[in-house]
Each structure stands twice: as structure tokens, then as C-alpha cells.
């Protein structure tokens, strides 16, 4: 894969632009006219209460559900493409529950993710040695020691890292991560956060997350969604200061803790 011309991500100018994204499930609009601009080099967090439409946005952008509007990446409209074509365009994603190939080893899992870059005829050959990009990914996710273990025997957190490693091998320029630290210990969260910072320099990373501590520690930009719309966008501090956000999202947590204030007034 020798690339002659400088690509947008090498220049630090890669981005994914979403305009007026709407997803309609038989009359129920899960996402209503969402605008998002996701820039390279910034850890972009998508937060919001359950049912806000965060995962649906990611599903629409990756071709899992049909959406209308525009999701443009390098002059291609992702909403008109099929899932595997979107992946080939450089968009990778993970799911809420880590799905790795349990019967294959860590190495095979990573190797399989590199298949996109291979010619069809190379597929009938057996793997010889470990490609450099697989080696790099193994190092980045810190699973070099476990490379020959079946992926099914990994701990939950390690499976999540393996999934991120697969995105690295696949050379995803845009990574859409759905709750990557769910169920992780505090140390694992920290390691994941550092990993995302490291690999996020030359990539566009979007993280859907519920864990507010994790968001506070690592987010460069936060977008708050509520009932299918974008409620607010900004730095962590700006978001926390936003009264609307406090009401629909952060407010509820405060409320749950304090149980004094009764929520009233209009729902935004």
C-alpha cells in the first residue's frame, strides 16, 4: 500500500460531515435532522440518555440502517453505500458487545481484518509470517503476549482492545466506537483512553459513552444528543455549564443523587 499523493489524513485535514441525518423506523423518527462535523485529531464523544439516537447515528453512517440526509466523507455519500463498501472507504466501527471471532487466535483475528487490502487470489494461500501492520496493531493494543491464544479466552476488556486493533489493521481512518469502556476496570479505562489518544492523532475517532468520568478525562469535543436531535456541542466545560444539558442529561444524575429537585417545565 504505497500511497503517492498526500491524503487528507496525512495533512491532518480529514473529516466526516453529517448534515440533516434522519432515520425513520416505520414512522418513528429515531434521529431527526442531526448535523455533525467530525474532525481528525480530536476525540469526539457522543453522549446522551438512552434512546437519544447515538447508536442509530452510527448505524446509519455504517449502512446498518437506512438514513436520509447526507454523510459525506472524501466526496462520497456514505448513506448511499453498502456496509462493506463503507468499510473499504475507511470507516470502521465496533459494537456495544465486543464481537471477535472466538475460535480464531488473536493473531488470526487481526490478520483477517487486513483482508480488505489483499487481492482475491492471495486468499487461497496460507498465511506466512506476520505482516508488519498486524505486528504494529498487536503492539498498540498490548496483546503481543497473547497473540496465539483463542480470542474467546480473552478477558472482556482485552476483547474490546482486540476490536480496536482490528480497526487499526483494517486501516480505518474514521473509527466509530460504541461504548468501548463498558464493563472495564478503572485501570483498563485509563489504558483505553491513552490508546485512543495515541491512535487518534491521525484518525477521526468518535466514541459513544455513558461513563461521565471517562468523558471528562479524554473528550476534546462532546456532542449531547436527546430524543434524536443534537442538543449541544462543545468542550466538556461548556457542556457541563449548559443549562439545557443539565436538565435532560447531567441534571438527572444530579437529581438521582440528590432526589430533591423535581424536574419541571418544557422538555427541549
Amino acid at each position: 500500500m504505497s500511497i503517492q499523493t498526500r491524503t487528507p489524513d496525512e495533512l491532518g485535514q480529514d473529516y466526516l460531515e453529517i448534515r440533516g441525518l434522519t432515520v425513520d423506523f416505520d414512522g418513528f423518527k429515531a434521529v431527526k435532522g442531526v448535523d455533525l462535523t467530525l474532525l481528525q485529531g480530536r476525540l469526539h464523544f457522543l453522549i446522551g440518555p438512552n434512546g437519544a439516537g447515538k447508536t442509530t447515528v452510527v448505524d446509519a453512517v455504517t449502512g446498518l440502517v437506512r438514513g436520509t440526509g447526507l454523510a459525506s466523507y472524501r466526496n462520497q455519500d456514505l448513506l448511499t453505500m453498502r456496509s462493506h463498501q463503507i468499510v473499504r472507504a475507511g470507516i470502521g466501527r465496533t459494537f456495544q458487545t465486543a464481537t471477535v471471532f472466538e475460535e480464531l487466535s488473536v493473531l488470526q483475528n487481526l490478520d483477517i481484518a487486513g483482508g480488505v487490502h489483499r487481492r482475491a487470489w492471495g486468499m487461497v494461500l496460507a498465511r506466512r509470517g506476520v505482516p508488519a501492520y498486524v505486528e504494529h496493531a498487536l503492539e498498540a493494543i498490548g496483546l503481543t503476549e497473547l497473540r496465539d491464544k483463542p480470542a474467546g479466552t480473552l478477558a472482556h476488556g482485552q476483547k474490546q482492545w482486540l476490536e480496536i486493533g482490528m480497526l487499526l489493521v483494517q486501516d480505518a481512518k474514521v473509527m466509530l466506537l460504541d461504548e468501548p469502556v463498558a464493563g472495564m476496570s478503572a485501570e483498563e479505562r485509563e489504558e483505553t483512553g491513552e490508546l485512543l489518544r495515541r491512535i487518534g492523532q491521525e484518525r477521526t475517532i468518535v466514541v459513544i459513552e455513558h461513563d461521565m468520568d471517562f468523558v471528562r478525562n479524554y473528550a476534546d469535543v462532546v456532542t449531547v444528543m436527546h430524543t434524536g436531535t443534537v442538543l449541544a456541542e462543545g468542550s466538556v466545560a461548556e457542556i457541563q455549564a449548559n443549562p439545557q444539558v443539565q436538565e435532560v442529561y447531567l441534571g438527572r444524575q444530579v437529581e438521582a443523587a440528590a432526589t430533591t429537585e423535581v424536574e419541571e417545565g418544557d422538555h427541549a
Partner: protein
Amino acid sequence: MNPRLTALVRGAAPLIAIAALAVLLLVVAPATLSSFRLNNLGKYICWAIAAVGIGLAWGRGGMLVMGQGVFFGLGGYAMAMHLKLEAAGPEGIPDFMTLYGNGTMPGFWEPFRSGAFTLVAILVLPAVAATILGWAIFKRRVKGAYFAILTQALAVVFATLLIATIQETGGFNGLNQFTSFFGYNLYDPVNKRMVYSIAAGLLIACLLVVWQLYRSRFGELLVATRDAEERVRFLGHDPANIKLVAFVVAAMMASVGGAMFAPIAGIISPSDVDATASIFLIAGVALGGRALLLGPALGALTVGYGRTTLSETFPTQWTYFLGLLFVVVILLLPRGVGDLPRTLRSALKRSTA
């Protein structure tokens, strides 16, 4: 033992096993079996060739192909048509056409006078049929029980069609009474042995093909597709294409098996290619171990042998025995008899732990 040597032995073990089977089928069996028994073994080998393909599609690809009889039949009838025309001689037409019809031969028979055309057709017909069929099925994401029922229904349709077209395909009687095989008199025991050896050689060749496929990146991707199809989609592959390749290869192997079955059995009829015949193929694969390299072939050979032996002793009840065996294996050893060592080992580990 040093680890590199262990790895080498582990890598070569499948090849050693295939070589052992080759010696058994190509050297030991012809030297020890009577020509009648050898001919029977030849039939089982034809089923085993089809079973190897089923192992690829079902064991590794997760597609329960319940209608492989159709592809077995495509190859079998293509070969039988050629042999029939060979028996009829140049310009001659098959005997049954004058018996049941008005003595004219349908146009689609004509090209099968050529041996070369027939050999190409045996590989290309099932490949084209499986590609069209597979494309329609996999692109629509039909899978699981729906896929199994669909393929099973195809076998029923295929057999019904054959029975209904007595003037064109010999109907219920099928095609039989072949006298020679590409110029070699089939009544000569030496030539029969040659036909047997070709079938055994083709089985070994098919085993080598799947051995390479299983160790290739395609093999890994196929298993990945079986276990988590959606995840494969998000690796940038269209799972439909991966499954299509396995399905087409399986169809071609079934066709090759059928093509060798016609001269060895001396007949190919709707009952060799219908839904029941398809299920017998599946039963062998399940018995031997569908995801293993040699499991499907050995399972099919065993079921074939059991079929003959049991039907000699219990002419009417033998299918019950086979059915019972199938149920027992599915319940107790869902991965097949070939997986018994592994099951025992893990059970032992559990009891000592």
C-alpha cells in the same frame, strides 16, 4: 520435542492422513477386495467426494446444504448421457427413447456425444447453477433453516422433474446399461478397476483442495463468516461472496462425485439424486464430523458401507438403524465421531482439574 519440530509435525499431520487414506484406497483395497466389493467401495467413494464439498459448505461455512443431490445429479446425468450415447454408437440414439418416445432425440443431448464437452459440462454446469442460485440466496441474506428448506425443496423439484420427463431423461428408471467408458469396455474387470481408481484419485484430489482452502486465509474468513457474519461485513467483506465461493466449490465436488457414480454403479436414477439421497449425504458428513478435514469423507464411506451391509441383513428395516445412528450422533457427539478424541480429552481434563 522442540517446538519447531512439533509445529512441523502438526502442519504435516493432515497430509500424512490424506496420504494414508490414498494408500488404503488405491493400493490396499484393490489388492484385497473382490471386484464386487471394490465396486461397492467405488460407490461410497463417489458419495464421499460429494461429502467433502458438504464439509466445506456446512462444516466450515455453516450452510446446511440439504439438496446436494441436485448437483450430484447434474454431474451424474451429464456423464450418463455421454455413456448412453457412446453405447448407442455414432448417429445412434439411446434405446429408451425409441421405447417410450417417438424415436427422436432432444437437442440438448447432442453435445454430450463429445467426451470433452461432457467433462467440461460436469464442472461448468453445477458451477453456473450454484452461482446463480447462491447469488440469489446469499445476496438476499437467506440463511439457517430457510436455506436448508430451500435447498431440500430443490432436490424434490429436481427428482420430480426427472421422473416426469421419461422421454428425455429416462424418467423413474433413470439412465443405465452403459457399455463403455471413454472407449474402455465396462464389462472388463480391469477397466472397472481403472474407473474405481479414477474415483479414488478424485477423492484424494478433493481432500487436497479443501486442505489448502482450510489453511488459507479464505478458510479463516469462511469460519469467521459462519461464526459472526455481521462482523465480517464490518471488516469490509461481503459475506455473500465468501459463502458463494464455498457453495460453488461444494456443488462442483458433488457433480464430480455424481459423474463417477454413473459408470461405477452402472445406473443413475431419480432415487440417487432426490431429497432422501441428499439427506444420506448429510448424514455421512454429520457422522464423521462436519468441520474436520477427513470427517465428511470417512463418514460418507461408513454410511455407504452400513447401507449395503445392513440392507443385506435387514432388507426392509435397515433405514431405521441408520436413522437411529444419526440421532445418537447428533445428540451425543454433535461435532461427529471424528471429534471423539477431543471430546474425551477435554472431559479428562475436566475430571482431573
